[in-house]
């Protein structure tokens, strides 16, 4: 076998100047997840979260390295001799090395732990304008058996005062730092139970944002029980993004989303939602579904909420709960769920290929993240670009921890305690989640929801091991859809070019 001039691969190693490669240099594979779509083979690289399509020669070399563990360049070239010229093998190995698919067998594994620089500009402030609710959903994390803060008998006021809400606005604008805009999400309890303060806060925030030369926008989550015509007019006129918590058709909604007397809420909310969807056209309105062991019929729920009720998008999330609760989803339940998600996701792909809108927002959000290729050190923006505020003005990790002393990051008036924030980021970095160290899905999952982990395992620091299989299965499905779109309708993916992932939770 003739050996081509050495600089060919040496110069292919721009990120590693000084690397000396000879035909005897042994290579090995780095981490990646392989998937096929539209007749092509792709690699989702870990930890970079980059997606590359591999040509035949690259695939052959990757397969050889996969079988052999490590192999020298000359051995690889010999193994594919007759099929691919030596020069092509060297070129391909150069490309694989640049993309970090392969590395020298003896190169030490890099283990970077890079903490974000603080202060981090705040993107979203979730303002809990009340901790009261007019429904008594059995699975509720705020009032149910898994609650963190005693909002019923606790120290905090039941409703946020107008003054505290104004301080929240000042906090959001101040902490947004160099960002040109601030985003405020109103939350609860049932958000609209404090509509008077909410309405005044929007006006105040618009004025203050104009004063400081920033844009501000708003969203809220509601159970729809209090959507009266004047409220709907306000939401539409002020272009407030609305997410409705609803679980599906009547028989499903009324299983858990009930009033304190046990009566279901569907009959009350359905006409109000219809009125909202007819009047509020300035922003797309989404439904947010909580899935439980008893309510796992994703396809039926989607069809009802999207096709029949007219929601623009429908997003699903398994209930957050301790495993022993009656509504907790079992392992078999997660398998069933994944099957349903896959079916609906393939519907989404078909619609995307045909240029039709599809409202399954779980797919869209995952595709967006895959397209950006952010490699996450933290599962979400909580404690980074997102924080929550309780009714008394305490700032915490996120709205799900609002009012919890153990998860306090500061107060509206005193600002964020940077030492607390740094300590949190230090201890919650993906590199501390040893269970995640060998998982290919960690760039997109990073261990999952802090609140879920806290509820399941009593700590925000651990990964959510109960849904690892589910996350891998779902990410794989979305990668297949992503790959198919990249090959068959790449223009569809352009909508994600300028969009950054917004870490938010719409419970």
């Amino acid at each position: 076998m003739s050996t081509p001039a050495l600089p060919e691969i040496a110069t292919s190693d721009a990120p590693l100047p000084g690397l000396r490669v000879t035909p005897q240099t042994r290579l090995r594979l780095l981490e990646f997840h392989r998937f096929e779509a539209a007749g092509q083979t792709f690699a989702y690289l870990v930890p970079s979260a980059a997606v590359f399509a591999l040509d035949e020669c690259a695939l052959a070399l990757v397969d050889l390295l996969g079988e052999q563990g490590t192999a020298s360049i000359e051995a690889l070239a010999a193994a594919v001799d007759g099929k691919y010229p030596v020069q092509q093998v060297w070129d391909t190995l150069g490309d694989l090395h640049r993309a970090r698919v392969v590395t020298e067998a003896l190169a030490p594994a890099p283990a970077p732990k890079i903490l974000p620089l603080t202060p981090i500009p705040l993107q979203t402030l979730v303002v809990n304008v009340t901790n009261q609710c007019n429904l008594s959903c059995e699975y509720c994390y705020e009032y149910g058996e898994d609650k963190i803060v005693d909002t019923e008998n606790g120290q905090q006021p039941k409703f946020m005062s107008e003054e505290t809400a104004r301080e929240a606005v000042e906090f959001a604008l101040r902490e947004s730092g160099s960002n040109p805009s601030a985003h405020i999400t109103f939350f609860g309890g049932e958000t609209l139970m404090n509509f008077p303060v909410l309405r005044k806060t929007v006006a105040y925030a618009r004025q203050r944002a104009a004063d400081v030369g920033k844009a501000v926008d708003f969203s809220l989550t509601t159970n729809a029980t209090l959507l009266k015509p004047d409220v709907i007019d306000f939401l539409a006129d002020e272009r407030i993004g609305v997410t409705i918590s609803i679980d599906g058709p009547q028989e499903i909604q009324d299983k858990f989303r009930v009033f304190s007397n046990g009566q279901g809420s569907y009959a009350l909310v359905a006409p109000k939602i219809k009125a909202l969807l007819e009047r509020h056209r300035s922003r797309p309105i989404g439904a947010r579904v909580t899935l439980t062991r008893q309510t796992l019929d994703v396809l039926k729920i989607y069809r009802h909420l999207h096709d029949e009720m007219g929601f623009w998008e429908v997003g699903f999330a398994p209930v957050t709960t301790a495993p022993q609760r009656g509504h907790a989803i079992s392992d078999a339940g997660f398998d069933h769920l994944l099957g349903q998600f896959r079916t609906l996701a393939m519907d989404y792909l078909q619609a995307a290929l045909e240029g039709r809108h599809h409202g399954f927002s779980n797919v869209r959000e995952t595709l967006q993240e895959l397209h950006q290729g952010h490699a996450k050190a933290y599962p979400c923006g909580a404690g980074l670009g997102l924080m929550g505020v309780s009714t008394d003005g305490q700032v915490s990790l996120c709205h799900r921890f609002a009012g919890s002393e153990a998860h306090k990051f500061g107060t509206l008036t005193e600002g964020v305690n940077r030492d607390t924030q740094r300590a949190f980021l230090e201890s919650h970095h993906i590199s501390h989640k040893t269970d995640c160290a060998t998982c290919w899905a960690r760039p997109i999952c990073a261990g999952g929801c802090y609140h879920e982990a806290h509820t399941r395992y009593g700590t925000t620091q651990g990964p959510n091991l109960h849904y690892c299989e589910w996350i891998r299965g779902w990410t794989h499905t979305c990668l297949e859809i992503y790959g198919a779109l990249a090959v068959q309708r790449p223009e569809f993916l352009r909508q994600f070019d300028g969009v950054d992932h917004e870490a938010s939770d719409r419970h």
Partner: protein
Amino acid sequence: MKHLTAINRKARRIEKVTALPQHDVVALQQGSQPPQQPEGPHIPAGCSIVFSPGWEADRTGGTAGLCQPVERDLFDCHMGCYWPAQVPDQLNHAPDWTAKCAAAQKDWRQIDLVFPG
């Protein structure tokens, strides 16, 4: 890249920052940028005020990228730094010894030996 196709935005960024430099001696002409950064301009300032790699080992743990570029020895280190680079006496005996070397990074091969006499 010819054999891999960048699909998502991260992959396109990786492709861009690892693009092959059009230089003749790559390792020596990388500049003093950390890995995976687009190459910046070469600023021949004293190495004590820029983040040059170390003297004992370069950033990859090898020796090919030490105190780069080495031309600093000739034009900078022996004056601005303590580095005892052996260069001809440009004031008295060899005022023209770098005359053919207009741009050190490109023309360093033009510098010849200086013989006493």
